Every structure is written in C-alpha cells, then in structure tokens.
C-alpha cells in the first residue's frame, strides 16, 4: 500500500456527478461575509489529484539545470577566503603568492573592491533580502568568524581554490561576545518580533502561575541549526549589454527563494535601477529559508564588474556555513499552571535567543504559544543575546519548530503530573478564539485531526506509565505533540495570464524549490481556467515575471492562488470585452461567467458557451495577456489563521546504548484543502524528517572560544539518512478554510513543528527520561 492510499480522508466525494462544471470568479473570500473561492469546494476537477511533478522528467534525467551549472563565455571561477577571528580588524592581506599563481585573474579584498552600498536587511527594509547590514568587503572590520575577507577569480575552480588557500591574513583581534552563556547575561528585549511586540501579556500570568494547583516550570534548550540544502549556494552571473545604449544588465542565475527581493536589494547595493538586474532561478536544490541574499552573490557581482568577466561562484559546503546564517540557539522557559481538571490557568513562555545587532530576526519562539491553548493568563516574551556571529536567519518554521518542542514537551509533563492522557489535556484547553489576539479562527479542526490520527496510530495502546513496553534491549514508547504554523499571504503577489488558442501560461515571480509549486499551481490554474493541465504552463523563478512572491512563511500556495484569482477576473473581463454582439456570451457580466471546458460559459446555462479559441479567433487575436495584483490580505486582520496537526511517534530507546530509533511516525494535519496529495505527502514527510533531525541529531557546533562553526560539513553535522527514517504516515482533514484561495493553507513548514516534542515525549514514555535539551543524543539517555 502506498502512502497515498492510506490514512487519507476526504477522497470519497470525488465522484463525477456532483462535480461542478465550471469555476466562477472567486469573490471576496477575505471578508467576513465574503464568498469562498469556488475551488475550495469539494470535488473540483483536478484539485486533489495526485498529479506527478511536472518537472519530474527533467529532474530524473539530469536535464534540470541548477544555478551553478550555467555557462557564460569567458567565465571565471570564484573562491572565497574566510576570516579566522570573530571581531577585529584586518591588518594585512598577503596576496602576492595568489596573484602570481597560474590562472588567477583577480584577488579582491576590501582594498580594491568596488564601492558598494550596504544591503537592505530582510524584515527591516521593504527591499530587504540580505541577512545582515554589514558593509560587504568595504572596510577592514571583521564581524564574525567566517566572514569573507578576500575573493579570488581564476580560470578554473582548482586554480581559484589554490590561490585562495595561499592568501595569508593578519588580524588585530578584539574582544568578541561569542559565548552564549555570557551573552545571555546581557540579553535585551528586541524592538519587535516579526513586526509584532516582543512581549505579549494577557492577565497576570505570574500570579496565576503561583496560585495554580498543578505546575510545570522547566527550561528547554535548542541548539543552532543549519539548513543544509543539498545544493550548496551557487550562482553564475555576468554584466551584459542586452541592447545598445541601455547600459549594462546584471544577469544572474541564482539559487534563490526571493528573486524579486534580491533584485531590489542588489539594485540598492550597486546603486543601479532594478530594471538592470535580472535573476532567474528555475531550479533550486532546496532552500528551507537559507536561499536568500548573502554576501556571496554581492561579492560575485562586484568581482565580475572589477574583472570584467562573467563569474561562477559555488560555495563549498564549508563556505555555506561561513556565509549563510542558520537558526539561532534558544533557551526557553515554559511555566504552566493548571487546575485539577487540567485547565490551563497560566501559560508563561519566555527566554533568550542568540542574535546579532545587524539583523532583525529574534528567533520567534513564542509563535506557537500565541494561538494554541486557552489560558486565562498568558505571558510570552523573547529576549535576544547579541553575539559576534554570522546573522541568524529563517529556517523551516522559524519559531514554531523550536517553540513547539518546549511547549509540547511541557504539556506532556503536565499531563504526566495530572495522570491525564496528553491528548485529553490538549482537548481540554482547546480555545474558542485566539487566546492572545482574541480573533476568531478562520478554520481550526485540530481536535478532529488529533482524533483521527490517534485512531489510525493506535494511540490508545499507549501505557500511561513509562517503561512498560520492551522488546529485547529496546524500550518502546509513544508520544504525541501538536503541530502548528500560521497561514500567511504576503503583499506583493501579482500574476500574468497569457491565453492563446492552445492554452494558457501563468507567470509569476514565485519559486519552486521542491515544494511542488510548479505542479500544484499548474493544477490549480488549469482548474480555475477550465483547461486540462497539459494546456497550462506555469512560469516562475524569474525576477522579470510579475509580482513578488517570497518562498517563505509557507505562503506561496495562497499568495500565488490569490494572484491567479485576480488575474482570472481580469482575463474574463477582457474576454467579455472581446466577445462582441453575436457571441452567446454577449451581455453577461464577469460574475455571471464561469470558466469551463476550455472556454467561458454562463453560470447555470449550459447553452451559453464559447471556447477561448473561438473568442480569440473571432476577435482576430492570437493571444490575450492580462496581469493583476492579488487582493490585499485582509483575511489576516479578520481572523486568526493557522494550520494545525498532531504528530504521533513511536520511539525505541536502547536500554544498553541509549540509541533512539523512530519506529513509527504519523502526522495528522488540518491545513485546509489539500491540492495534490502526492506532493503534499512529500512536503509533510520532508518537514517531519527535518523534525527528526532536530529531535535526534542536528546541532551546529559553535565554538564559544573562537565563534567558529566547528562542524561545517555533512559528515559532522548529522542530518537524517535513509536508515533513520521509518515509513511516515500522513493524513489530513481536507477541510477547506473558507477564507483562503482554494481553501488551502501552505504546508511547507508545519511538518517540522511538533516533531521534536513528539519524539521527546515518546522517549520519556519509553524509558522515563525527560530530555529538555535538543538534540536527544544517546549520552543523554545512558
């Protein structure tokens, strides 16, 4: 049995008869009294079909070309030299040997780099795609251990590497704050957390906690993590003269999850017009939050300018660790106070995360706690400890992935204290409305997901007492945890639809990094336009396409969906303007129209129909192209919008060695309408597997004496391998959210959430040891 035919709900109504024939224009789904997107209805043709990836053939034949695989005539290869101190100044750079080496074209340091503006920082500036606001190779300052201090260009990669290795740098080191333990003592409250307050209070949580009958007060720690996409960051670029007299264009093949923002940022850095920069990124070998704008792209472009040669820069694996930030470490306090019945009276979630003064991402570890449980008194706060380190950044489910570890472990501890089933405890604290914002939930069916998951998993077999189940050396336990991630739809999305007699092309500056975007959006656009999927092409990953859609925050599904909804409306309006007097559609208004059978028809009147081909032919048009901006994401102000799920885990703990093996893992999700069960299953599983890594093995080792990452390698930074991963079951409620495009929520990040705690809770149930410090390595269980 494949994963696709098990544990899935909602596939029973996909019969032919009740399939609505066409897709009317979506209304104002974002308003309280608004009309849901017709595509969110059950039984829509093509929606929910397990379509195989549209880019599958290219990916299995080696035909898919990634950013570091493009070629420009006369291209040279780059290599970077990284600083060996965490704070201080460069005294001297000895580049003589390098410059004399075979094939070397350029050695660039702060002494000869072109003048560049400081890049705008992500979440601080509207154009910001950069990880931090340090000047890039402009001064002799060193801000972290691993900062690029020189760049070499040479005719071959081998020559560039050898030359980079020969460069000697002398430093004047200055005191650096590189020990989290020390930095914590000087922690400060950041001025915002993801644009919101760094402290949120409801009632008087501390007093309520003191007064509570049942109390859990514990500290949970999570280490630094790195994304470790299997494709290391790479780009190929050239300053080209596209047309006479237009000046140069910076043409970049990049591995990017934000082509549009990157263009805007680079334009600021180089002081040129954004129209002079063109980034494409059709294939990205995994992003997970890491493939934004870091120093390497800027340095490559600067060097290309200086040398007047096209440049290929592919970071080594070690280079990725030196130049691309990861997830910050956190220390979180969870204090839960509950009454006899397990009702939460007080919920305190506070703590510290490492950060720099040069970025704007306090690891938002209270995110999940904001919305998950009803409690009369809540206090959430995040402090940051400033360090001399590479700026931390977004990594899959920033906040939620580590906050659910703390919160959901603590709930398990409370359930244990109350002798209550952990799922029951959660059910008793299911909120009516968002406990911190007071908003109604747009769609929340967590209990349903938990119930069906529990049934499928066999949760009732769990013994409440740890250590009851044994198989040989193995102690076996079950654990569960809630997963959650917000629904998002960021501003800036727009789409272009180009209709021809043969079908349609949808273009939008969005991204495909393996999430299935290209496949799913082809499906959705086809359904929306009443076309077969073969007749729809989805174009993405190109900054010259319309709109600006960040592949982040699990927002692409909704953001693209919203833009295509708007473009469909524009398209229908234009088509109606074209039809003329003798068309059967004549006189109809857009809202009386639906897209069906490769054309437009009157809603409820099968006889009034004209195919796109006919309409275009009659108007003498070979194509029609429209562009529209997505409606503003007003829904986010009207409701509390989140995805939910429950993760169930069966873990074995070896009584002799302390090794943990995950025997079973199940995720039951409530993420709105699932658009493609095949790619969705992969997304959920992929997140859950990263969750297993977080739970059991992942940790970036940051040496507190040097501020240097000491395991910048896939041999030393462990991620799960095939043998670590059991067959993971995934199921979902498939209940559409009436207030989102297609009734869908993004699903890229929720999979990782909850897994850390589900594993920790299963480990506790297996052997009675509570591990509050990730990762759960065997030494902690001996």
């Amino acid at each position, binding site marked *: 049995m*494949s*994963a696709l035919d098990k544990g899935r709900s909602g596939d029973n109504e996909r019969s032919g008869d009740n399939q609505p024939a066409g897709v009317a224009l979506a209304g104002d789904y974002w308003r309280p009294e608004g009309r849901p997107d017709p595509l969110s209805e059950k039984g829509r043709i093509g929606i929910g079909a397990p379509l*195989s*990836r549209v880019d*599958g*053939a*290219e*990916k*299995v*034949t*080696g*035909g*898919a*070309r*990634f950013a570091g*695989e493009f070629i420009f005539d006369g291209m040279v290869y780059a290599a970077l030299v990284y600083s060996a101190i965490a704070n201080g100044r460069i005294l001297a750079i000895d580049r003589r040997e390098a410059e004399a080496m075979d094939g070397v074209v350029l050695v660039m340091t702060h002494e000869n780099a072109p003048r560049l503006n400081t890049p705008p920082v992500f979440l601080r500036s509207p154009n910001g795609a950069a990880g931090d606001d340090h000047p890039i190779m402009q001064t002799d300052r060193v801000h972290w251990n691993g900062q690029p201090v020189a760049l070499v260009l040479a005719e*071959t*990669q*081998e*020559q560039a590497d*050898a030359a980079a290795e020969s460069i000697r740098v002398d430093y004047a080191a200055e005191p650096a704050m590189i020990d989290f333990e020390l930095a914590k003592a000087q922690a400060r409250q950041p001025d915002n957390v993801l644009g919101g307050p760094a402290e949120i209070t409801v009632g008087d949580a501390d007093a309520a906690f003191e007064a509570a009958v049942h109390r859990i007060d514990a500290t949970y720690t999570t280490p630094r993590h790195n*994304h470790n*996409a*299997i*494709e*290391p960051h790479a780009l190929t670029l050239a300053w080209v003269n596209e047309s006479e007299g237009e000046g140069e264009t910076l043409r970049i093949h990049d591995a990017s999850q934000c082509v549009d923002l990157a263009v805007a940022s680079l334009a600021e850095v180089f002081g040129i017009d954004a129209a002079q920069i063109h980034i494409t990124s059709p*294939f*990205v*070998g*995994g992003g*997970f939050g890491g493939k934004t704008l870091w120093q390497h792209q800027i340095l490559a472009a600067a060097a290309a300018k200086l040398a007047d040669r096209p440049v290929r820069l*592919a970071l*080594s*694996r070690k280079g990725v660790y030196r130049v691309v930030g990861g997830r910050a470490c956190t220390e979180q306090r969870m204090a839960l106070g509950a009454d006899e019945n397990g009702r939460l009276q007080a919920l305190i979630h506070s703590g510290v995360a490492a950060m720099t003064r040069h970025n704007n991402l306090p690891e938002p570890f209270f995110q999940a706690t904001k919305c998950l449980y009803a409690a009369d008194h809540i206090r959430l706060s995040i402090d940051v400890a400033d360090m001399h380190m590479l700026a931390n950044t977004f990594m899959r489910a920033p906040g939620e992935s580590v906050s659910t570890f703390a919160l959901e472990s603590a709930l398990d501890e409370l359930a244990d204290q109350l002798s209550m089933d952990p799922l029951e405890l959660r059910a008793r604290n299911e909120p009516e409305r968002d406990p911190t914002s007071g908003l109604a939930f747009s769609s929340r069916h967590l209990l349903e997901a938990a119930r069906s998951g529990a049934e499928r998993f066999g949760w009732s077999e769990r013994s409440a007492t740890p250590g009851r189940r044994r198989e040989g050396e193995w102690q076996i336990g079950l654990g569960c945890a809630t997963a959650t991630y917000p629904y998002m739809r960021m501003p800036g999305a727009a789409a272009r639809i180009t209709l021809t007699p043969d079908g349609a092309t949808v273009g939008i500056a969005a991204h495909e*990094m*393996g*999430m*299935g975007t290209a496949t799913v959006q082809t499906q959705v656009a086809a359904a929306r336009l009443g076309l077969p999927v073969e007749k729809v092409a989805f174009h993405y990953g190109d900054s010259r396409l319309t709109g600006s859609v960040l592949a982040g925050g699990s927002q692409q599904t909704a953001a693209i969906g919203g833009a295509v909804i708007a473009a469909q409306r524009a398209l229908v309006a234009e088509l109606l303007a074209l039809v003329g007097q003798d068309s059967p559609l004549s006189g109809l208004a857009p809202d009386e129209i639906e897209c069906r059978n490769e054309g437009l028809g009157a809603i409820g009147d099968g006889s009034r129909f004209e195919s796109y081909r006919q309409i275009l032919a009659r108007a003498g048009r070979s194509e029609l192209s429209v562009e529209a901006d997505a409606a503003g994401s007003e829904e986010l102000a009207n409701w509390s919008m989140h995805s939910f799920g429950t993760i169930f885990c069966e873990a074995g703990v070896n009584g002799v060695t302390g090794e943990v093996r995950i025997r079973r893992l199940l995720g039951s999700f409530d993420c709105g309408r699932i658009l493609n069960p*095949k*790619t969705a*299953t*992969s*997304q959920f*599983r*992929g*997140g*859950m*597997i*990263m969750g297993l890594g977080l739970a059991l093995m992942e940790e970036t080792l940051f040496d507190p004496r040097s501020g240097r990452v000491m395991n910048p*390698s*896939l*041999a030393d930074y462990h*991620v*799960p*391998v*095939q*043998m670590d*991963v059991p*067959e*993971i079951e995934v199921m979902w409620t498939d209940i559409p959210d009436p207030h989102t495009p297609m009734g869908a929520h993004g699903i890229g990040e929720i999979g990782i959430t909850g897994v850390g705690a589900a594993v920790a809770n299963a480990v506790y149930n297996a052997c009675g040891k509570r591990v509050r410090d990730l990762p759960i390595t065997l030494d902690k269980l001996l």
Partner: protein
Amino acid sequence: MQWTINGQVREAEVDFRTSLLDLLREQFQLSGTKKGCNQGACGACTVLVDGERINACLALAVQYQGREITTVEGLAERGTLHPVQAAFIEHDGFQCGYCTPGQLCSAVGMAGEFERGLPSAVTQDLAAADLEWSRDELRERMSGNLCRCGAYNGIADAIAASLGKEVVR
C-alpha cells in the same frame, strides 16, 4: 586523458587536481551529476564506474582514466526512462531534485551489488549465500545518499517498485 562516459569515449587534458565530478560537470558539461558536499558525505555525486557506484567528488579524474563511467544522463536508453527513473516520478522520490541523480545511480549500483550477493550492515547472517530484499536492506544500502528534502519514503518506494522483486517490510 581518456574516459568512456555513457558509452562515448571522451578526451580532455585536465589538472591532476580535477575530480571526476568536476571533469563531468565542468569539462564535459554533464552537470546532471551533482555536487552536494565535495567531501564524500552526501552521495549527490554518485556515478557508476564499471557498474559500481562511487562518489565522484573524492575521485581524481586522472585515477579513473580508461574506465567506463555512467552518469544520470546515461541511464535512460534511447529516450526511454530507466525503470528506476520512471518509478521516482511515479512515487515522488524527490522534491528539489538535487540529490536525485545520485540517488538514481546509487540505486542502480545497489541493485547490482545485491544481485552479486553482497551483504550489508543489516544482513543478519553474513555467511548466508542468499539474500532477501527487505525494506531495511534497502534503506541501509541507500544510506549513503542524503536527501535534505526528506524524500526518503518515496525513494525507497520507487526503488522497491523498480526492482521487480518483493521487498518485505
């Protein structure tokens, strides 16, 4: 220097430092084979040399002169996907696709090793002449190919399906 790559004799003069991986990617523009770590730790660069899977990143091109090298570009025959390629599409054995060429070559190499009766770390009785496919055998044998997207289940399903043999759970 000379190599037979996907059945074609190819020649190039290369720096001794050049790895087989860079030879393929940079000299011959066969960029299907991927570089994930350049340190033998991820398997993205897996190719077949005389039918055996190796990590091309740690192989010096000069050392492999005269050998038969098969890359992902050489798996399909005359436009027809290799069964394991087709199965990867059907079972969603990838997401971003970057580890995929390595997974595919590795799977082909693995099937050969199994045919030849080579055991793995999880083979219970190492002395036994007959091996039995199991999910664990498959997973252990494919553990030299990391997939950060986490397509492991799909990969295992795809390989199991393409083997045309029963794989016990």
